[in-house]
């Protein structure tokens, strides 16, 4: 199951490396990771998406708290939240195809942000599903180049109380937990 973490960290050199290295060290595969400034000076916010079970998610959270520059970790997977991805997609389009592409852009509420004789650049934001779907319908026209930010996420509402990590609860341990013998 895909888990989404919001991690608040000190904005200092090397912090991204520390967080990313923790995932590698504990053998978790990062699906996407974004990082940027927050409303608070000196604090950066990461959105990290990881494919793991509930046991792995709690283990990650507990280990993230052991990193000195990590201030707070929220696993917002189960919380009502807004999740967005931004994509820039360069599509080959001349003549009649151009009209079709622009119609699709309208349907997806995306925007054309650059026009050249041979191509269009489309900017789209939305859930990952929506952008995946847009990319699929554009593919027949020729996607020349694409870049995506990966997910950013924010919990809905105003609840933002500081909450220390709870101990990993026992019922979360994977039943097939099998550590090889060494």
């Amino acid at each position, binding site marked *: 199951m895909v888990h989404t973490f919001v991690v608040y960290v000190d904005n200092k050199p090397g912090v991204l490396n520390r967080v990313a290295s923790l995932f590698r060290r504990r053998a978790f595969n990062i699906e996407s990771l974004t990082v940027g400034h927050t409303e608070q000076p000196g604090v950066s916010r990461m959105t990290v998406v990881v494919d793991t079970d509930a046991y792995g998610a709690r283990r990650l959270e507990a280990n993230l708290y052991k990193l000195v520059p990590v201030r707070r970790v929220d696993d917002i997977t189960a919380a009502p939240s807004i999740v967005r991805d931004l994509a820039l997609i360069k599509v080959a389009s001349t003549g009649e195809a151009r009209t079709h592409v622009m119609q699709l852009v309208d349907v997806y509420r995306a925007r054309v942000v650059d026009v050249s004789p041979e191509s269009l650049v489309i900017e789209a934001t939305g859930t990952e599903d929506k952008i995946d779907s847009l990319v699929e319908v554009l593919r027949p026209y020729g996607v020349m180049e694409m870049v995506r930010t990966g997910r950013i996420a924010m919990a809905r509402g105003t609840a933002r109380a500081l909450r*220390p990590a709870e101990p*990993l609860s026992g019922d979360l341990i994977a039943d097939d937990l099998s550590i090889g*013998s060494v």
Partner: protein
Amino acid sequence: MRTGAQIMWECLVREGVTDVFGYPGGAILPVYDAMLEFPIRHVLVRHEQGATHMADGYARASGRVGVAIATSGPGATNMVTGIATAMMDSSPIVCITGQVGSKLIGSDAFQETDITGITLPITKHNYLVTSAADVAPAVREAFAIARSGRPGPVLVDITKDAQQGSCEVDWAAAEPRLSEAQDEALPGDGDHREALALINAAKRPLILAGHGVMQSGAEREILALAERAQIPIAVTLLGIGGVPASHPLNLGMMGMHGEAWVNTAIMDADLLLALGMRFDDRVTGNLKTYALNARKIHVDIDRAELNKNVRVDVAIAGDLRATVAEWLPHVEKGARSAWLAQIDTLKGDAAVRDIQTLPDDGHLYAAHVINDLWRVTGGHALVVTDVGQHQMWEAQYYKHDSSRSLITSGGLGTMGFALPAAIGAKIARPDAEVWVVAGDGGFQMTMAELATAMQEQLDINVAIINNGYLGMVRQWQEFFYDKRYAATPLSGPDFVKLAEAFGAWAAAVTRRSEVVDAVNAARRQPRTAVIDFRVEQEDTVYPMVPAGADLHKMIRRPSPLVETGAD
């Protein structure tokens, strides 16, 4: 105005540091130059790995933070094994390394290496300091992090220009900032009421005491808990000494080479109280069959350890001493005589397989040596072991009655650890009788540190358990690789001549009857003494739980006194 180098030493003095272990070099020269102005003893090591093990041994012997210093590049990379050792065994050390000038970083300059990158996964935290003004905050925070929560190593890499540059220091502003999550010494978060209900209701409870008992200073509280409720105690390798071995409720060591009755008791228990231990694979064996009859309570300062390997009923994250102190008034006095009698029976069954009680066949066994060493020193020596068969025999046969009296590399299993760690321990506790117990393999890895011991005029005793093999690996080859002894037969120097060449006193022992005299002779020496015990070559550590096997399925020592199907 003070230089970065002076500020670093001033920080150390303010932290109460009196001894450091190090090796100079180009990028750390400004620090060494400033050292002469400060009241700190510097121990010159023979290899930077030794410096880190010495700092580690110093920390484990005293509970104070150990400090190691090295130059950039190879000096720093030589520290890696010692840092990883300290990380795995939660030992508080601070490593200071020199770095090339900040303008040269990233240019592959002479003796440049990315030591903060290299040590990132094996330190609690590390710092790259590039200006004199950042030295004090980094060093002071490093000490706070090293000793707070679950202790561990912290590295501070200081560029040469940061050491040479000058600034004013505002010592108040250099106070470390640590988040609330890193405060401790409070009873842990968790369901204490449920824990107490489980303890008071248990018929066959067992305490599993780990390194955390000593780390949190909970020795008295654990014993009070055990005595009040009549709960027997099993200890991990690093938990040895936290509870006196001679206490009737202390059953001894658990795990792969634990006592048979201890492992059997764990499998039979109806409640496990895991206190300051982390259910390492070497103590659990097969997790799927581990202690299925028992409810489990786990107290640890490190949340990430709770429910990591073993599913528990009550998980409490916090300081162990404070947690048990909070429980004590609510723990009902118990008898539990049936349970204790059941364990006593198991103990009696095991005695017939004990090599100490088997007829003397004229051979010198390592167990004899350790047993005699224990008797002669009255159980009060500070023993530092290396890694391998001798380490397990020490754990089985030396009965430690005082806290912090066994120092050994448990988690990482670092060969070559013993001699340097013993040097650190001796400097931390000059009045302690310090014994190194090492194999001939591990001793040869770091024996150059004999020169350090001689230069510092330390009175350390070294028992080399010399069997001419990398014994533990040979044992695995014997059991699991059809006795194909690939690369385990090992020759060594004449250890007596070698030790004498360093200026140490030395003797060799080949007979059981000579052990006590040799030990006493070494103890009489006011300088470092080395005894080469030439023991039975193909001896085996029993019992043994094969890696990944069920904890109670131990390979036992064959005995002429008993015959069972298993033999």
